[in-house]
């Protein structure tokens, strides 16, 4: 048996059910791994060791009684610090919420707890999920386990790095414009962004409400399927959450993709800024899918090039309202060194928010302002509709679409920090799926210059089972996902 921290989630679940290992042993192994490595990687903002061991004990009792055992019972997980955890700090990696303890659990946390999962801790992120490198964390940047000089991507960089470094077998992140898929690609793990409305957003601290989705990180498509199974489904507390029935995802993992129509969107592959090494790895992955019997077709998503622009209007617009509640009156950071109400409000926000958050609040406020609304926000909504239409047409001809998840491999820490626009372009392949509300997954697909390259598989709305099937089929014939960084 390999070291406990090297187990996939599915294998660990099997061993737990067979009582060959206990959840306490498993949890302890990951806590030790965190202890050993996280000083260098800095994936976690908080490690909840005592709580984890207590939950592990409870899981062991459940496993012993053989009652209410689910595939996640006793499985330790890392949770992005944007997801509300009752009485446990939920900081969004922001000074504003540094000491905020929500009085309630996010729906996904309730579901994980009901399934018997164990929480190892909360993971680092770009402040309020705004960024693509986790460098915008107000606390510290997270390092890519494959090269500590590089970023893990973002905004869910902490969750991606934790899984990549074997500090957790699975994790939750959130994806607004690629915040799960891009770090998954850069860290050589699986990251799935579900269809908008597949997973409840209740308890997910909002960045851009019409784009945000919670999704899983894992090492394999099967593990991601198990995590999604646990958290998906309708929620009376989220009116945007769909009533569409949740299929049995693992049952769909047949390894069979013969005859499946896989579209290759030309605009993605020919995008400016595409790293040739990344393109080559992506092409090899497509060839591998063809060998598995899939039918590869070129398709066009003509409005792709407007995606980033539309996204950087819509997301900041929504964010400017979502972040208005942080006024220092009710919770979180509060500037109190004045008797003037308006000064207190201004200073609270001046000191509580970091530069990227402020940049997006200003952008969003601007595009919604009288006289600019039509030129920006309304126009962006039209682009959004056109991008959704592109996908509708593509999915008439294809079952899934594939492309690299990111145009580059992991970049150096600090490399793009001074140029927000270059940072924004890193999400060029992931943003359209959020705008269209469809699902996507990034899976390990090879290496360029020794750094991971992720393959993005996009599916139609509520076609998670299909993209998971393709991902699983690919992983059955490749070993990229089993490769580990040297740490």
């Amino acid at each position, binding site marked *: 048996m390999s070291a406990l921290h090297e187990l996939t989630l599915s294998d660990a679940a099997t061993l737990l059910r067979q009582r060959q290992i206990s959840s306490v042993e498993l949890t302890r192994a990951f806590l030790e791994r965190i202890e050993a490595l996280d000083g260098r990687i800095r994936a976690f903002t908080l490690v909840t060791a005592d709580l984890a061991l207590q939950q592990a004990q409870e899981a062991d009792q459940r496993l012993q009684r053989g009652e209410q055992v689910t595939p996640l019972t006793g499985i330790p997980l890392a949770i992005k610090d944007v*997801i*509300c955890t009752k009485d446990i700090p*939920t900081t*969004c990696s922001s000074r504003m*919420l540094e000491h*905020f303890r*929500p*009085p*309630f659990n*996010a729906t996904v946390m309730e579901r994980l707890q009901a399934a018997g999962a164990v929480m190892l801790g909360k993971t680092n992120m770009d402040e309020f999920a705004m960024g693509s490198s986790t460098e915008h964390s107000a606390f510290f940047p997270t390092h890519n386990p494959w090269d500590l000089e590089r970023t893990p991507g973002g905004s869910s960089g902490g969750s991606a790095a934790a899984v990549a470094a074997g500090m957790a077998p699975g994790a939750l992140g959130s994806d607004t414009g690629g915040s799960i898929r891009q770090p998954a690609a850069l860290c050589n793990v699986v990251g799935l962004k579900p269809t908008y409305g597949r997973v409840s*957003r*209740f*308890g*997910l*601290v*909002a960045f*851009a*409400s*019409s784009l945000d989705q919670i999704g899983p990180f894992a090492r394999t498509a099967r593990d991601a399927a198990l995590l999604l199974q646990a958290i998906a489904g309708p929620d*009376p*507390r*989220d*009116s*945007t959450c769909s009533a569409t029935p949740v299929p049995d995802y693992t049952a769909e993992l047949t390894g069979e993709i013969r005859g499946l129509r896989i579209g290759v969107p030309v605009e993605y592959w020919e995008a400016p800024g595409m790293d040739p090494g990344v393109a080559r790895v992506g092409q090899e992955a497509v060839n591998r899918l063809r060998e598995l019997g899939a039918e590869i077709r070129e398709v066009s998503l003509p409005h792709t090039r407007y995606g980033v622009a539309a996204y950087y209007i819509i997301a900041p*617009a*929504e964010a*400017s*309202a979502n*972040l*208005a*509640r*942080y*006024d220092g*009156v*009710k*919770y979180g950071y509060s500037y109190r060194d004045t*008797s003037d*109400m*308006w000064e207190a*409000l201004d200073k609270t926000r001046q000191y509580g928010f970091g530069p990227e958050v402020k940049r997006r609040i200003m952008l969003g*406020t601007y595009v*919604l*302002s*009288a006289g600019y*609304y039509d030129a920006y*926000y309304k126009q962006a909504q039209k682009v959004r509709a056109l991008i959704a239409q592109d996908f509708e047409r593509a999915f008439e001809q294809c079952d899934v679409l594939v492309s690299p998840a990111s145009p580059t491999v992991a970049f150096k820490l600090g490399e793009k920090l001074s140029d927000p626009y270059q940072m924004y372009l890193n999400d060029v392949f992931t943003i359209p799926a959020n705008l269209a509300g469809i699902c996507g997954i990034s899976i390990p697909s090879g290496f360029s210059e020794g750094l991971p390259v992720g393959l993005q598989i996009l599916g139609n709305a509520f076609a998670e089972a299909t993209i998971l099937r393709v991902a699983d089929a690919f992983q059955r014939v490749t070993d990229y996902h089993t490769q580990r960084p040297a740490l």
Partner: protein
Amino acid sequence: MAVPAHTEVATEFEIVIGLEVHAQLTTRSKMFCSCSTDYANAAPNTHVCPVCMGMPGVLPVINRQAVAYTIMTALALNCSIPEYSKFDRKNYPYPDLMKGYQISQYDLPLSRNGYLLIEHDGQVRRIGITRVHLEEDTAKLLHRDGYSLVDVNRAGTPLIEIVSEPDMRSPEEARLYMQKLREILVYLGVSSGRMEEGSLRCDANISVRPRGQQTLGVKTEIKNMNSFKALQQALEYEAHRQIEVLRAGGTIQQETRGWDESRGVTVPQRSKEYAHDYRYFPEPDLPPLVISRAWVEELRARLPELPDARRLRYQRDYGLSAQDADILTEEKALGDYFDQVMALSSQVQDRQARARAASNWLLSEVVRLLHAHDIAPAACPLKPEALVNLLDLLDRQRITGKQAKEVLDEAFVSGELPETIVVRKGIQPPITDPQALERIIVEVIEANPKIVADYRSGKTNAAQYLVGQIMKRTRGQAKADLVQQLLRAKLDEAPTA
């Protein structure tokens, strides 16, 4: 500046007024969470949850009842109900706004294009309703000891905004519109309609223009009017102020002004609190509302009788005076009581006579007792059955009017049926048989020859003594008017030999 009579104002200038009315809906729970709206007597911040406190990560869920109430209000105001509606975020920073934005409705409200009829100086005026939309109330700020304290209990209470067209032409019309609107909201049961408590609030847009001018003058927005009286007074003051400014060659500043009740003036509000670009955009946390036609019809069918219809029915079906019909309509509980009395009087042949009697007894005696005991009409301890019973006793001439009042006083307090009280007190039926009465009258006349002589010599007052004697002999059981009539007939006869 003295406030002149508004009649002077209205000659050379025309006043133009539009009202924005906010009414809290009487749903059990708040607009977007399950907190109770019954916080009136609760300690601050006890009717709150993460949702109405605007905690990070929470999401709103629409209260269907509030949507139903809004549609019912809109239907009562003759509005059309579009099939498609949505919520929007109205952004402005203020500590009474938990999320930093208010969930409201911008370009696709639940209803639009209605009207309300008011009667002014005997003329019916049609006041256009631009829209009725649904939003959430804010928290309450309490300023004391140099601190501003926030009570979140009110935050998230469903609130409808009823926006009128600038169709009112005098402060009095504005008051009449507001009163009529309140009446309708109370009839619908969607709002308690209490201006003094703030469950019904009103802002006014007012401008003046030289008579005959087509374009509107520059308007001011008037806030902080907490009663119908304050509304009329504030607008009278403001109209006069604007006219004075124009007469002096000045221009009106477009601004928000607050009514200072104690000083009787409107004063400019601090601009920082109101001068905002609200940056409306569609609320991404709530899917658009699709209002099915079937639901609208279901709600239409559920509309109760509205004040105008009731007023008309009372006059047309029951022959009540316009004044009585008004009083019974304005105080809905009295009208409801009256309707119950009439429903319980189904066996009575002369409906109009019964209606008039019921209305008279209700509006004079029952209202007198309610006042005396300081009880609201809705909580009247005298059941309609009891009043019907009393009216029946009167119709059967089982008791006299005077006795009926005494019985009513008792029934009001004890809750007994009037006939039970009549039996318990041994009240005898009035002597209504003229022959029986005549015998007693003859006896009294014969026993008092001196008085009779006085009467016949022209001292007609002397008859009163005889009436008293007769009433005494009948122990009050005789009907006074009948006694009078028979006695005079007897006295005016030629003296018996």
